[in-house]
């Protein structure tokens, strides 16, 4: 009797091992998608979605290192095209040898046409995925996302990692763009009082001057109005947006200006902005005050003395003031309030907002926006006397 019980238990144990190994998604069975690209293309006369994904190839620890540096890429691409997103996903999955896993998809790139016409569908599907992370970065590109996603970076990081780094730190460090996460973007999309924008990504060659792109650059913004892409901001307008809407910390933005035909550079290390508004006769007028802090490392041969600081600061402030004005002009041109100015009205003066809620974009267009910049020079770097005296 005892033996029978033992045999029975053993049988159960064996059966359970089959059960265990059956239906779970083991780590080595995962196809980790690191990057996602969505396009809207015209294939055979029919407008269709096209989706590209970069899948991670698991590294073999047993192989020698030299083999990896050979250039065998650590990622591979898959893509599919269809009129409906769900069908695309199923078509993609057929191609995959393993189960797709989106928990590490940190970068989503969208082609311009896609963003112009079909964004809500795409975003909805992306967010609905259980593995999707709210902190993923979204970017738009002027052409097709497939162009971006097919690039092979020559650095040691993967493309997705590079883009992630650029969005997170490098772009804002240089004042040309900033990373927008999926959560943030969705929140903007769904807000009734503001518009969204996404950083722009373009292919570029790492050696300047070459025509074949092998890397990407995150620079500029794509502006949305309601849920459609309507325009682009270039480098300077992007800086304007950053100065108005974001608090910058620990950045290194170079702002060149000239005095007496000598070019100097103002290195902006931080900025703060405050937006105030007053309503006069049903028309709001905004007053944006920007305070910046920075250094002047490139003095163009001039030695900075204390009494020269004030006029320099004035000069710099004027120069900086150009940027936000440019982007505000662009915002009015595109009829999209991506700064959140009208949102400020909504928050601080809700009764007024109720009046203009149906036509807030017109109100924005007519609103006066004044920008005041106060630049501070903190120092001139470690080198206090310039070397240029040598050349004179």
């Amino acid at each position, binding site marked *: 009797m005892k033996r029978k019980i033992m045999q029975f238990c053993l049988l159960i144990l064996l059966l*359970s*091992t089959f*059960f*265990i*190994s059956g239906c*779970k*998604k*083991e*780590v*080595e069975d*995962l196809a*980790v998608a*690191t990057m996602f690209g969505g396009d809207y293309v015209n294939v055979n006369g029919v407008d269709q979605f096209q989706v590209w994904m970069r899948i*991670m*190839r*698991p*590294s*073999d*620890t*047993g192989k020698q290192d030299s083999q990896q540096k050979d250039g065998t890429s*650590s990622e591979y691409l898959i893509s599919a095209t269809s009129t409906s997103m769900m069908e695309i996903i199923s078509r993609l999955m057929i191609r995959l040898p393993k189960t797709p*896993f989106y*928990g*590490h998809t940190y970068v989503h790139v969208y082609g311009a046409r896609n963003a112009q016409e079909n964004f809500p569908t795409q975003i909805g599907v992306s967010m609905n995925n259980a*593995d999707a992370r709210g902190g993923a970065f979204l970017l738009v590109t002027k052409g097709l996302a497939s162009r971006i996603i097919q690039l092979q970076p020559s650095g040691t990081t993967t493309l997705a990692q590079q883009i992630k780094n650029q969005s997170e730190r490098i772009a804002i460090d240089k004042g040309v763009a900033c990373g927008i996460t999926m959560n943030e973007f969705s929140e903007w999309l769904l807000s009734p009082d503001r518009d969204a924008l996404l950083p722009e990504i373009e292919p570029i060659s790492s050696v300047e001057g070459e025509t074949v792109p092998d890397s990407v650059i995150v620079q500029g913004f794509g502006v949305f109005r309601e849920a459609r892409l309507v325009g682009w901001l270039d480098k300077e307008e992007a800086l304007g947006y950053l100065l108005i809407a974001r608090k910058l910390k620990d950045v290194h933005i170079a702002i060149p200006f000239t005095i007496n035909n000598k070019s100097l550079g103002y290195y902006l290390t931080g900025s703060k902005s405050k937006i105030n508004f007053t309503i006069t006769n049903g028309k709001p007028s905004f007053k944006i005050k920007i305070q910046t802090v920075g250094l002047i490392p490139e003095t163009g041969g001039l030695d900075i003395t204390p009494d020269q600081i004030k006029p320099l600061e004035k000069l710099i402030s004027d120069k900086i003031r150009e940027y936000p004005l440019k982007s505000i002009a662009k915002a009015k041109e595109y009829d999209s309030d991506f700064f959140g100015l009208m949102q400020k009205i909504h928050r601080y003066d809700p009764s007024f907002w109720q009046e203009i809620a149906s036509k807030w974009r017109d109100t924005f267009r007519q609103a006066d926006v004044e920008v005041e910049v106060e630049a501070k020079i903190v120092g001139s770097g470690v080198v206090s006397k310039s070397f240029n005296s040598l050349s004179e």
Partner: protein
Amino acid sequence: MIKKLLTKVLSRSSQKIFKTPQDDTQETRTLTSDIDTNLQILHDFFHLCEDIVSKEFILNLPTSTRSFIIYADSLCDPVMINESILKPIMQENYFQVQEITTMNASLPQIILKRILINHQAKPVSDIQQLSNFLLNGHLILVIDGYSTAIAIAVQGYEERAVNEPSSEQNIRGPRDSFVESLPTNVSLLRRRIRSSRLKYQSMTLGEISQTKVGICYIQGIANDKIVKEVKVRLNRINIDSIMDSGYIEELIADESLTLFPLVQNTERPDRTAASLFEGKIAIIVDNTPSVLIVPCTIVSLFQASEDYYNNNIFATLIRIGRFFAINIALIAPAITVAVFSNNAELIPLNFLTTVAGARSDLPFPISIEIILMELTFELLREAGVRLPRTVGQAISTVGGLVIGQAAVTAGIVSPITVIVVSITAIASFVFPDYSLGTSIRILRFVLIILSSFLGLFGIVAGLMVILFHLCGLRSFGVPYLWPIAPLSVRDLKDTFVRAPWWAMSTRPSLTTDKESLRQASKQGPTKPDKEVNDQ
């Protein structure tokens, strides 16, 4: 309900009334006055026990009284027999003893009170009692014409010397450990608690083995109800032999179908003495160095006596480290299985690719791998216990490393499995108590299986079941998870941290109801007012 089923199944065989064969045949018999009859009775009683020897001799009396001694050769010290018993008895000149002529006292009484040079001697006439004495290392002196014999204690058998404990070692603190002899063990305790409040009561358990069992407690500190309960439970034991305190542990514990030890056992007298001061009760069993301490809570299983001797901050950190270790030992393999097989979202990306790459050619899913490696390590551990000491060290070290490495190279398991299993094994050795370690080992397997089915949720479910089980356990009426649940903040200072001695001024409140203050308050370190060198 399951418990009822199991107990029914297990106890079906023991439905008969338990009786030792000797009970049937023996009525209460006493010695007679005739020495030959007595000799015959005793020889029949100990028939075929060739280590029970008897010697006849004649006393130096006018009537030439015969007498004989009977003793167990294996239990008695011959020198003591010769020097302190035979010599005075046989050489004594009885005529000189006044009591014979004048007071006409019985000879055994005179021998007992005047002639014997021995510290422990009693008169005895009942055969059963006599055999008990004899088997306890006494020598029985029977004199012709008297039905009262004298039982004289002459124990002298080999016992192990007191040396370091084999399983609970420490760096600082006393290093003596209990041995197999009950009197020596009691002496080790008495030396530490030189007070008349340390009470020692003994009883004999085991129908045939007649093992001596002693209960120690400090009167006034220990809860009287618990003392009474212990005695009741010990008296209830009706078994034929007690080989080790483990038998008693299972028979008196509150619940037997639990993996967690409800009775603490230790080999160290300092630990026992400290527990006595906290109001616990020690049960010492002859022939085994494991002393039982009741009642037992899970927190006391985490406390090592070294914590109290070392620096208190260090001890606190080590204790916190122990809590982490138990978590690691219990759930680390299960978490690995869950994370790598079900919930891969929880792994950072670089790690994910490395692991996926390393595992892509392996035959087994990770749950099977972990179970295999764990089983191998368990086998190694068990083997290491049985191996002779010289060979054991080498095999266990070599076994662990080599088998692990070979398995990785052969492509059976992945390196991550080996790492996880080794860390778990190391963490499971951190507990001061061995029985808790065994429970953790078993539970680990259960959790691995659960997590392979249900992932992280399976681990949570398993842990909840364990938690419910633990919360329902009681050890002699004391909740097992005290003082964490039923919360007693005052006593928390000895669980996760070890408060400095001057702060531990109260005893644990659940096991003692009186005398809660154990030291004067405000005994913290104080500095003298002036520096020594200042004048």
